[in-house]
């Protein structure tokens, strides 16, 4: 490098002069502030000031490129004059807008693949904690699912169907040109200039082995050259509550009557007791079975007829929902940014603070992010820049999904109101501690005959655990991304980029010393600190040249990528009250640590050619070597080819008065996937850590395929873009076919072999779809403007090859010709009116044991047949939005929808258990149960014996269509003459609602659950109403 610097000092500059002028709009003759003026083929440039004026140093013979968002880019060759004034004409489709693509930028017109760009404006319309959420409903063909109401959790994103079974199906996220390994929640929305979703092979091929699931390119803001410093300050504050109401549950008196009925039925029908005995035994068994008596000293609160006895008054009736969920969660976000630039240097500096509370009490997410982006042209041929950010966040994360005892939603749906929030004595009186405070009841007061021991979720109290336990996720991310660019000639440049990312995950877990699961060991503290470092080094040589009608663009790149996770954990028990650090631990329980490393070496290149900016052709190639595979199978070649035709530039269409623009494009390519399979998936090894007291111990890991290699996706894309009627309607239509071959796939083995599966390259999968995006600019006035957009996509998923005919995977069966996500479960056949038992369908078999095609019902669940029943993948997803501006008011709405998917609601199944497990909460729907012979109902009898009535079947499979109003904003910008005197450029106030309305076909459940359509006791997303203020100086 020193040698290099020494060399460049000798470089002699060509003769320079200063050109100045004014940029105006041809339509109205008004000056255009903020238009970009760039010396073609260089990074030198600036923006016009508020009067549309610019002044730039150039050499005679160089070309100045003038561009502005919606105006047609104009080029002027610098001649002898020192003044160049330009009037820009309206460019209907903003085709010369520069779009960030893989390893570079291209004009919108020249793109041959499928790229959807989200601007800062679109992102800012939504209140997103994780920026990738903004894709939902705004980009067609992308399925986004936000699971649960814990703030700071990231959505699941699937671009164009599900391209993998066992390897990762997550898209690659690239931040400012570098693959991002941190937590995406560390980036705040206000830092983002654009977020581009790359969907087809030609746009993603340069990411080769990691591109098969699509790529999201996030570009952060930069200042503008020659612009005055702009200070932008925003504040938003609001309140949130769950977006969707939960299933309704029953109260204590009903609960007691139903419990009696279930016990009576069980005695009568299962244990064959006489009716009198069955009823009497049920009455006497209730309190001993439940362990608690909310009626105090009324020993048998339910009589032999199943009614509450006179005088049975409730001492408590716990509303667990109220005890666990927030009524109003506060959200506030403040941000400040400073941007601007001189003649050679531009900068962007920002800071953002967010504090958001979650649905479940005590859950929250607090984040501070800062960013500094700096870029400077040192001289004519050298530009250097640095993008850096520091982000730190803390997430208080009480369990609110899954099946651990303290899991909030599971608790609300499991624990009946019979069980008290606070501890009670034998007579039902409250018990106080030495300080006179109530004590959370953990259902584990051993030795107390009543109100002591709970039969379910013993030794736990999910409401108490919100305060007695602590789960914190702290994250700190530092990124520094520096580059140096050398312009050898106008056509040839070299760019070297080094990026470093350091991501620290610091997990802290405290379980109380006095109550709950770690009380017997005096509390437990577990901490883990994982450091992920990523080092990426890219060297690129770019060539860009126009000869007459021909333009050639070529890029050659060499890249290395290194990622390392260094994990450390410690755990100890035995703490004094109030002590929550490991130094206070009496017994060290465990220490752990490991290092995982991944590397990638790549050679890549792209060549593009166009003729008269009318015919485009482009090819990309990448060769990747990955440390995830054995030496023999680690290198993979990936490529794409694509082309486009700007039909509207042809002479026969050029003068059309209704067609402004028409482009056809097509691409094909093959990409890879090596993510989500572990770091050494090809090795079968003996795992350490299985020590037997002081003897070190190892255990054989799962069986592996030593020849495991890339999973390959072949993508075909064809599309059409158009603009009609003088820029009134704009749209695009695309069709794609994505074939994933040699899937990295966990092939199930018979569990009797001692291995449940082997990961190998078998099978293939196909995703096909059509995507449509339309935008109408209905009113285009200066004072009033109104536009509306709609996008939607149809996607189908199909298994095209498997190693075995079919096999069952949870609630799905995988079979050639079916989707990965077709439910394959038992079909509910209703309730037998004769005895109230649930029934399912099974095949009628002929004499040889083959199905005849007819079906009959069975009451034996294990004999029930399984059948295909819809899919968890939606047929159509999409969104629509509208923007209205009237004077100083602005109004916009954004909706997203999903149609045709099914969801299996296991929470509801739990609530419809019918008291086979005593003490569990039940749905209000249980009222419609079978009660006596002849009752026609779909809800079986209540039975306090093991039964399969609520086992997996179509009984709990529901349509999951929904429409969600994701964002609605009403804003008002103060008249500029009112603020100008205060040196304030702009003041805008707005009222915003997020997720305010959700219409869904299945109530009681947030429709966004998981790709596989299964629930996991998740808390709901939140709806937020907030007020915001934005001031620009």
């Amino acid at each position, binding site marked *: 490098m020193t040698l290099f610097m020494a060399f460049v000092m000798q470089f002699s500059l060509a003769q320079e002069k200063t050109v100045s002028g004014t940029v105006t709009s041809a339509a109205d003759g008004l000056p255009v502030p903020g238009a970009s003026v760039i010396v073609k083929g260089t990074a030198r440039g600036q923006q016009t000031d508020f009067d549309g004026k610019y002044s730039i140093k150039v050499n005679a013979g160089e070309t100045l490129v003038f561009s502005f968002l919606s105006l047609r880019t104009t080029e002027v060759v610098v001649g002898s004059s020192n003044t160049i004034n330009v009037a820009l004409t309206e460019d209907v489709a903003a085709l010369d807008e520069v779009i960030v693509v893989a390893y570079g930028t291209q004009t919108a017109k020249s793109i041959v693949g499928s790229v959807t760009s989200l601007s800062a404006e679109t992102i800012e319309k939504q209140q997103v904690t994780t920026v990738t959420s903004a894709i939902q409903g705004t980009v067609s063909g992308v399925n986004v699912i936000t699971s649960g109401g814990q703030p700071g959790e990231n959505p699941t994103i699937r671009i164009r169907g599900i391209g993998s079974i066992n390897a990762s199906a997550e898209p690659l996220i690239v931040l400012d040109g570098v693959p991002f390994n941190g937590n995406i929640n560390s980036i705040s929305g206000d830092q983002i200039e654009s977020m581009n979703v790359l969907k087809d092979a030609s746009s993603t091929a340069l990411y080769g082995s990691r591109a098969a699931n699509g790529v999201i390119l996030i570009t952060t803001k930069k200042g503008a050259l020659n612009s005055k410093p702009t200070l932008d300050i925003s504040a938003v504050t609001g309140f949130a509550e769950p977006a969707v109401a939960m299933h309704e549950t029953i109260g204590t008196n009903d609960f007691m009557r139903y419990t009696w009925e279930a016990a009576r039925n069980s005695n009568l029908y299962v244990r064959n007791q006489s009716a009198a005995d069955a009823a009497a035994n049920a009455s006497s068994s209730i309190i*001993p*079975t439940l362990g608690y008596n909310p009626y105090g000293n009324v020993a048998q609160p339910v009589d032999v007829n199943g009614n509450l006895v006179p005088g049975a008054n409730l001492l408590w009736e716990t509303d667990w929902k109220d005890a666990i969920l927030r009524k109003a969660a506060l959200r506030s976000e403040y941000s400040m940014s400073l941007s601007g630039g001189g003649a050679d240097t531009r900068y962007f500096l920002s800071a953002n603070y967010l504090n958001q509370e979650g649905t479940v009490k005590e859950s929250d997410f607090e984040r501070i992010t800062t960013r500094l982006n700096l870029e400077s042209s040192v001289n004519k041929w050298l530009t250097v820049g640095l993008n850096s950010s520091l982000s730190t966040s803390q997430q208080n994360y009480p369990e609110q999904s899954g099946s651990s005892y303290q899991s909030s939603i599971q608790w609300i749906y499991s624990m009946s109101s019979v069980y008290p929030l606070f501890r009670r004595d034998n007579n039902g009186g409250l018990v106080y501690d030495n300080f006179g405070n109530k004590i959370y009841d953990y259902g584990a007061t051993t*030795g107390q005959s009543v109100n002591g021991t709970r039969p379910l979720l*013993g*030794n736990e109290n999910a409401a108490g655990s919100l305060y007695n336990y602590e789960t914190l996720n702290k994250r700190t991310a530092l990124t520094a991304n520096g580059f140096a660019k050398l312009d050898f000639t106008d056509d040839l440049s070299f760019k070297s980029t080094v990026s470093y990312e350091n991501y620290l995950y610091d997990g802290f877990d405290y379980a109380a010393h006095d109550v709950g699961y770690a009380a*017997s*060991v005096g509390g437990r503290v577990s901490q883990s600190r994982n450091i992920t470092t990523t080092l990426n080094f890219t060297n690129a040589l770019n060539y860009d040249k126009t000869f007459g009608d021909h333009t050639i663009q070529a890029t050659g790149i060499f890249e290395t990528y290194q990622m390392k996770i260094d994990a450390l954990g410690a755990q100890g028990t035995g703490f004094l009250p109030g002590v929550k650090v490991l130094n206070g631990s009496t017994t060290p329980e465990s220490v752990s640590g490991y290092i995982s490393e991944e590397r990638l070496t790549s050679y890549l290149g792209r060549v593009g050619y166009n003729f008269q900016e009318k015919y485009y052709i482009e090819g990309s190639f990448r060769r990747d070597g990955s*440390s995830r595979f054995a030496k023999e199978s680690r290198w993979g070649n990936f490529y794409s080819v694509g082309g486009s035709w700007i039909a509207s530039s042809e002479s026969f269409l050029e003068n059309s008065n209704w067609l402004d623009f028409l482009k056809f494009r097509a691409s094909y390519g093959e990409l890879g996937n090596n993510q989500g399979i572990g770091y050494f998936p090809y090795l079968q090894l003996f795992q350490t850590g299985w020590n*037997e007291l002081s003897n070190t111990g190892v255990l054989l890991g799962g069986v592996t395929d030593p020849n495991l290699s890339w999973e390959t996706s072949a993508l075909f894309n064809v599309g059409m873009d158009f603009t009609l009627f003088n820029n009134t309607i704009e749209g695009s239509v695309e069709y794609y076919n994505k074939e994933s071959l040699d899937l990295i796939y966990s092939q199930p083995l018979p569990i009797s072999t001692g291995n449940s599966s082997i990961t190998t390259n078998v099978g293939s999968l196909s995703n096909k779809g059509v995507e449509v995006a339309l935008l109408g600019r209905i009113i285009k006035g200066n004072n009033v403007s109104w536009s509306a957009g709609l996008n939607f996509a149809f996607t189908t998923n199909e298994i095209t090859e498997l190693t075995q005919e079919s096999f069952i995977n949870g609630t799905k069966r995988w079979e050639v010709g079916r989707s990965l996500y077709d439910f394959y479960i038992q079909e509910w056949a209703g309730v037998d009116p004769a005895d109230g038992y649930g029934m399912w369908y099974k095949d009628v078999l002929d004499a040889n044991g083959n199905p005849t095609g007819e079906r009959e019902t069975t009451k034996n669940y*294990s004999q029930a047949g399984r059948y295909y029943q819809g899919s968890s993948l939606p047929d159509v997803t999409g969104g629509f939005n509208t923007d209205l501006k009237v004077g100083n008011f602005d109004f916009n709405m954004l909706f997203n929808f999903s149609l045709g998917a099914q969801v299996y609601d296991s929470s509801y199944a739990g609530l419809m258990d019918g008291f086979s497990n005593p003490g569990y909460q039940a749905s209000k729907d249980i009222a419609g149960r079978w009660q006596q012979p002849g009752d026609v109902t779909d809800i079986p009898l209540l039975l306090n014996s093991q039964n399969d009535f609520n086992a997996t079947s179509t009984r709990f499979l529901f349509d999951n269509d929904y429409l969600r109003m994701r964002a609605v904003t009403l804003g008002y910008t103060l008249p500029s003459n009112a603020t100008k005197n205060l040196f304030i450029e702009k003041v805008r106030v707005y009222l915003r609602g997020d997720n305010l309305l959700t219409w869904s076909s299945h109530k009681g459940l947030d429709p966004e659950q998981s790709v596989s359509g299964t629930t996991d006791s998740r808390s709901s997303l939140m709806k937020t109403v907030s007020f915001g203020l934005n001031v620009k100086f």
Partner: protein
Amino acid sequence: MKKITKLGVLLFAGALTFTGCADRFLDEPAPTEAVSESVIFGSRTGVEAYISGIQRRARAQFTATDAGGVNSLYFARTIKGNDFIHATSWWSFDYANDNREPTYRRTVFTWQFPYYMINQTNTLINGVEASDLSEIDKAELSAQGKALRAFYYFQLAQEFQLTYAKDPDAPAPPIYTDLSLTGNPMSTLREMYKLIVDDLTFAVANLDNSRLGKSYVNAQVANGLLARVYLVMENWEGAELAAHNAYGGDVNAALAPNAYKDGFGDINNPEWIWGLPQSDDQSNYYYNAPSAFVDLVNPAYNNVFVNSNFSDTFSETDARNTFFNTGYSGFRSVGTSKFTFAFDSDIVVMRTPEMILMEAEAKFRQGDQLGAHELLYALQLNRDPQAVKSTNSGAALEEEILLERRKEMYGEFGVEWFDARRLQRGIQRTPNHRIVMDLAPNDKAFYLKIPQREIDANDNIDDSVNANR
């Protein structure tokens, strides 16, 4: 200008030269938490680490609180009987004796866990035999592997078919002695028991009494296992010899009555032949059946009570009388302090009194009633200094031996269920149970259906395997 272009090209070429080192660059990352086969089978220390790992896995969490380790196989058997009464929560479906359908967790776990361990022991045995270790080391280490393999096949044989004596040719789970990626067909009990007996005979012949710790297999453990197997196969002569060898023949030396009330949480109890040790940092936490369930004092699940009809059979002076009144009414009135729960409570697998009682029973079955009665009384007297020798003979003596087995080993490995199965006697619950039921001799409740997951992935087993199960 041209020079600069050249230099740029040079730089780029330089970067490309790095290519030569690319493979070395990619070779560098290596697994940090795992070791290869050569490390394990390259030395005796390596093999011992593997055996340690296998033994640790025997008590580790597997799928759920009632499905993790040998102890949960055992406790499911315990709770199916008459001597304990279960309140609610985990194990309630085992208590109801209906937890046997192909998709149920009990069924899948009881199949998957032993097979997981069998695959580990197969790898151990085959790896040792192919290694360059000395012949002495090879014989001893693979004997440990074979004893463990036999132990797990013995569990499968008991859980997925009626007892051997009922029909030795009845279908039994598949047999594997090598790593396989395809499923084998069902075997027969006869084939499975042959493998079990061969493995244990090899183990007895090639092991002595030394070992790394009381959780490892030595000749004593191998003999104890063989005695249990012969008891099921009704090879009384073999059972007598193996049981005798397992405890050494001296009743009082083999017993330590004062340790009975120590809470069954310490593997160093001299009566314990084999156990699963735990420590604060190597605990299965609340998966620790029986103690996490049977202990009614230390906070855990605290939901298993004692049938008063059973506790009434213990005299006041019996060292094994650990019963107390809970203060609850009904089926929850009696509890036991036999098992104390703590995260570091060890888990019992095999004890000397079982060997003494097996020897006594084997003598009885072979007609030596006198010898049998003498051994039984020796044990009774050890437990209760005021014990009086009964006047029982014939069927009454048989019942006395079987009752003594329950009194000695209740809660440990499902002795009641084990005896009811092998002797084809059934289980009758007394009316004070939460769920009163009678299991007829050879009732279907005594064995499980074949898991659906196995049927779905095994080409050699289809749905018909569960017909009439």
